[in-house]
């Protein structure tokens, strides 16, 4: 597969179909491939693609310094495809801006890719997360508060979860605004609670379930529990899962007059 990818990237760059190709190369960490921007055809030989290629590349599609390089080519796993679909849906990208070499095909994703070089790699699986959510819901609210207070107390406010998230792309994050300061910047209990819940809520109906925030978190907060709980909630309430169809409005940016309101007095 990798030879085919290398030769295709070389051809695409030579033909100037794309100005830059976003892929992976071998990094210092043997367990984690490093994202790489290839602009010269002869550099295509640096590319790799294996189980260590987990960092979401779609994030780089929106970087100003990458945008200036021309049309962007990208090797897209299942999660990346979903993230790209989400970015197109939210008008951050047009389909034509990006040349997609998909490594996994899925009938549910409506965003067409340009070519398919099928290579299954081990992505994030949410089965275990769902089990833990069910366990947590069995506890009393007080016990759950204690659980989250303990988890959030580890937070050092490094914002790695935000930086890695393919759907977090605001130029100025609410956490960086200080007039007014909605989210305390200090890594204290209040700031951590506000930050982690706000981050999760901003991804309601947008999270593509890639699991990157949890992997990137240096202190190991189970962030996907929150994300996945909201993901399941949106799915149950609105029958919607993000990252499959760029043509429908996001669930929280629209409404249905028949939405359930049994919780409203």
């Amino acid at each position, binding site marked *: 597969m990798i030879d085919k990818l290398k030769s295709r990237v070389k051809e695409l760059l030579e033909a100037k179909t794309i100005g830059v190709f976003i892929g992976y190369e071998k990094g210092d960490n043997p367990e984690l491939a490093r994202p790489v921007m290839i602009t010269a055809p002869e550099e295509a030989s640096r590319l790799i693609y294996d189980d260590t290629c987990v960092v979401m590349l779609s994030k780089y599609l929106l970087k100003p310094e990458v945008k200036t390089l021309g049309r962007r080519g990208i090797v897209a796993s299942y999660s990346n495809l979903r993230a790209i679909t989400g970015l197109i849906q939210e008008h951050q990208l047009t389909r034509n801006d990006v040349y997609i070499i998909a490594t996994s095909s899925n009938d549910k994703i409506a965003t067409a890719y340009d070519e398919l070089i099928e290579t299954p790699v081990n992505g994030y699986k949410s089965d275990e997360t769902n089990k833990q959510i069910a366990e*947590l819901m069995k506890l009393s609210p*007080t016990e759950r508060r204690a659980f989250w207070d303990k988890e959030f107390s580890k937070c050092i406010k490094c914002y790695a979860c935000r930086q890695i998230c393919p759907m977090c792309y605001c130029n100025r994050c*609410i956490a960086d605004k200080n007039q007014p300061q909605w989210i305390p910047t200090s890594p*204290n209990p209040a700031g951590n609670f506000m930050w982690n*819940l*706000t981050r999760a809520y901003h991804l309601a109906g947008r999270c593509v379930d890639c699991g990157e925030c949890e992997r990137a978190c240096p202190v190991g907060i189970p962030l996907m529990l929150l994300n996945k709980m909201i993901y399941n909630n949106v799915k149950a309430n609105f029958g919607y899962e993000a990252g499959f169809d760029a043509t429908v409005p996001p669930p929280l940016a629209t409404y249905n*007059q028949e*939405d359930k309101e049994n919780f409203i007095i």
Partner: protein
Amino acid sequence: MSSSFEPKIIAFLCNWCSYAGADLAGTSRLKYAPNIRVIKVPCTGRLDPLFLMKAFEVGADGILVSGCHPNDCHYRSGNFLARRRWMVFKDMLEFAGIEPGRIHFSWVSAAEGNKFVEVVNKVTDAVKALGPLSPIGHSRPACHSVLDTESSGINSGGNL
């Protein structure tokens, strides 16, 4: 919980219906629990869930959000959009360990002064039964005391 506990409840009322409903309750000389502090918002659709989280963070024990009945929104769809946000938000709070009885949503029109009284009493009873919210920033006494100190707290209209 001791029966003397008086919860602090922040009520976010929309300008066009619920705030007028509260006004009607007042001008009709109706009596309701004195535990709510009203914050007027242009529309429930203006209400970023961040506001609600902030209220809990600075020491509110409960929250009431009230707006126009469906199809009565001054801006046509604000309350419909808000309703969707609340559906997800209240479940997220519950998952994070804040009891569902601390956050309430209602539709109160400008003609429903009586309903406003009922809603406020109901919400106050529910929050009273739960007791004080264990502070979000449980090592932040300085911030929590903003609400506890009569002289500088929201009781006297101080800065939140």
